[in-house]
């Protein structure tokens, strides 16, 4: 199977061509990355809000959306995210393939021109964004920062990381901070964005059915940088400190409690042990066949969900579950027993082989998705490791039971976080 990736560095930009015939659209991604830092995060969080509101030639949201409609309902999305201690600003533009459309000549050229303009020619007044848009979008971001609390599952994750990684950049909120919103002006933000475009690591991806030479020519004609890039390449690292298990219980007006646990694995995407960590996670809580799901949900009817997830660039692992408030201690005990069972090698060779296949299946499915292919490839840029899809599958196939046990022993519980109903039902 394999996914072909052709890489070229030109104009101080890394281009990645991913030709395939899987889809009826072409997908473009422009990615900027920089170290996660409190000083810059709120600016980086606000930028996508503003950039979506218009460009030099299409200065209002309405005009920009009309141009996208003319491009057969092409879809633009701009967003920020964190991987480990790296922050990534991503522009996605997905364009229907010309071959399925009537009268659609030069659709691709027009789309690339628009993408370039969205990134490089925002709607500006002197050396700043439109003041009206700046003020309005700041307000919207402020509201969004507030309403994080309304999604209890993700709020519980954020609270766990806040406390567990309090001393580490990883705990910085990707959505920014309300009190930092007043610390910079429109001009400051504009000049920060100008610098970001020159200094951040920059990657451009194209996935779909297209001609590589022609595509490269179209892209390099538009996207150029001067090459004065600073040495800001972030290297994600774990932590050496032994923190010892901590517990934090908070109350909220909820019916279902969220029990989340953070662990240190100190295993990273680039490490040799990484495939074994994936297999460990699959057996522990990654799938409906995993220990957590079977034991917490199915055997004891304690939770609606109980899952684990690997953080690949910071060496962490999280367990997330939704439980009745009164079941806290029982659920915690069962979750801890499952990790002990993993350390003791209490799983069959059959389960091991099944899990490997499930992981490979999941990866293959990811590679059938247009953004999935791009995110999979970008993982390698952030994780500082180059590996082909076939090599990756082979590395998972080769994982042994002993390696999984070794990884399990390396997984250390760092923090237990419970968001529960008011009135301390947790200790009934």
């Amino acid at each position, binding site marked *: 199977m394999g996914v072909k990736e052709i890489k070229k560095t030109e104009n101080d930009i890394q281009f990645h061509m991913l030709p*395939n*015939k*899987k*889809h*009826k*659209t072409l997908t473009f991604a422009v990615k900027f990355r920089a170290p996660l830092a409190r000083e810059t995060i709120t600016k980086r969080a606000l930028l996508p*809000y503003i950039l979506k509101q218009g460009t030099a030639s299409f200065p209002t*949201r*309405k*005009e920009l*959306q*009309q141009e996208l*409609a*003319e*491009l*057969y*309902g*092409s879809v633009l999305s701009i967003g920020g995210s964190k991987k480990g201690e790296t922050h990534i600003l991503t522009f996605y533009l*997905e364009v*229907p*393939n010309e071959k*399925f*459309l009537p009268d659609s000549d030069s659709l691709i050229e027009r789309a690339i021109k628009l993408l370039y303009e969205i990134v490089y020619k925002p709607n500006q007044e002197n050396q700043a964004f439109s003041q009206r848009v700046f003020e*309005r979008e700041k*307000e*919207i971001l402020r*509201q*969004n920062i*507030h*309403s994080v*609390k*309304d*999604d209890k599952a993700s709020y519980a994750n954020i609270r766990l990381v806040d406390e567990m990684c309090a001393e580490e950049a990883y705990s910085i909120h990707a959505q920014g901070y309300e009190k930092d919103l007043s610390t910079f002006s429109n001009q400051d933000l504009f000049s920060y964005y100008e610098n970001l475009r020159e200094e951040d690591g920059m990657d451009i991806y194209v996935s779909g059915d297209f001609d590589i030479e022609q595509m490269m020519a179209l892209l390099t004609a538009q996207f150029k940088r001067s090459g004065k890039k600073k040495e800001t390449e972030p290297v994600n690292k774990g932590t050496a400190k032994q923190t010892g298990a901590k517990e934090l219980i908070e109350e*909220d*007006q*909820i*019916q*279902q409690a969220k029990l989340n646990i953070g662990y240190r694995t100190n295993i990273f995407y680039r490490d040799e042990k990484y495939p074994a960590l994936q297999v460990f996670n699959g057996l522990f809580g990654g*799938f*409906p*066949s995993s220990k957590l799901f079977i034991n917490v949900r*199915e055997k004891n*009817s304690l*939770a*609606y*969900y109980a899952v684990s997830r690997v953080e690949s660039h910071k060496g962490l692992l999280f367990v997330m579950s*939704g439980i*009745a408030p009164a079941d806290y201690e029982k659920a915690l005990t069962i979750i801890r027993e499952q990790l002990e069972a993993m350390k003791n090698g209490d799983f069959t060779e059959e389960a091991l082989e*099944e899990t490997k*296949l*499930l992981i*490979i*299946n*999941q990866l*293959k*499915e990811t*590679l*059938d*998705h*247009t953004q999935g292919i791009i995110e999979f490839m970008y993982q390698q840029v952030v994780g500082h490791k180059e590996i082909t899809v076939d090599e990756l599958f082979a590395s998972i196939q080769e994982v042994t039971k002993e390696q999984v046990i070794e990884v399990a022993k390396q997984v250390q519980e760092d923090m237990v976080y419970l968001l529960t109903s008011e009135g301390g039902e947790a200790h009934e």
Partner: protein
Amino acid sequence: MNKQYFETIDETLYEKKLDNGLRVCLLPKPELTKTYGVFMTNYGSVDQSFVPIGQTEAVTVPDGIAHFLEHKLFEKEDRDVFADFTKQAASPNAFTSFTETAYLFSATSNIEKNVLTLIDFVQDPYFSEQSVEKEKGIIAQEINMYDDQPDWRLFMGTNKALFHNHPVHIDIAGTVDSIYTITKDDLYTCYHTFYHPENMILFVTGNFDPEQMMRLISENQEKKSFDKLEGIQRQFPEEPDHVKEKNLIINMPVSIPKVSVGIKESHQQLQGDAYLKRDLLIDMVLDYFFSTGGEFYQRLYDEDLIDNSFFFESNLQTSFGYVAIGSNTNQPELFSQRVQEMLLSTGNMEISEAAFERMKKKKMGQLLRAMNSLEFIANQFAALSFKNVNLLDIVPFIQKLTVQDINAFLNTWIEEDRLAACTIQNQTVEK
């Protein structure tokens, strides 16, 4: 087996209606590695009152039973079906909506085996009193989880404001009280009526050989016997045209109020082209006015009434239909007032030829983009098949829509007594 090529989207569909009534559709996509299969029944949470197979009197079953049944089908006397799929490197799942229940898997290997596992587990129920009791705790957790989500409460609250009696105002999963009254006999009654092959469709798309796959499925079905089904009589309570409550307010802790304006669609029992036309026109009009490039969106934005949580959605079915337009906002009353004024003003508006051509382009592109997803193709094809619509014909159907169609629709779309609002806010609103 019927083979049909759809030129506008370059796809070939293989199709057959089996002797027992099951409709099987296969859409090969050899360029992908994955295969996705869905086995769907024309049965959802609103189908509460019906005449059971082989009987003459209608019954009414407890709220949430379709969803409960979906959970229980995975459990067999000796095993959990999740494990069977896992052994075959597949990921199974299921979902229940107001009008459908679907069982599905995706896999990149053992495709034929997984298709058979899908059919066999759905066609082989095992409900015991003990396992039904055990499931109640899990589903109660699920209901509580949803009740903590303000967006879900807003969604259901809007339906509660719109509908007096139609069961679309009841949560899909039921309530903690209602699910505790469900018995294994209730499950069997619903199962035998609604899981009859005549009421179901199997859709498989991805990487496989269609001839071989169809043979395999036919052979599997020939070995099983089903009672004769003479159509299903479903009953819905009388539903007035006007909304139940103009303004429904739900108090729960939220950091910023949420509000949604609902439009109650007239229940015209639409099918086929008439259904598709109305469904597309509703979508296109909403998109035209309320998507980020739309005039109404811009006005709400300029008045600081919305943020990027703003949404609009429509759901048109045979027995009911609704639209919801909502947002997080600090001024829920003003938002609701403005949106209702905007909707009422559409009766006198006219969409230009040029604007309509752009709307059609956008809709076609959106559809092509959605068709990148095997899940979308299979789930949508199956659900639309129950309304006698073929998903693969929609692109040419859109091309044929005219500006007269959309303006005629617009002139009669909104009536004031079909509009309602639902607000989620804290008990005491801070000044």
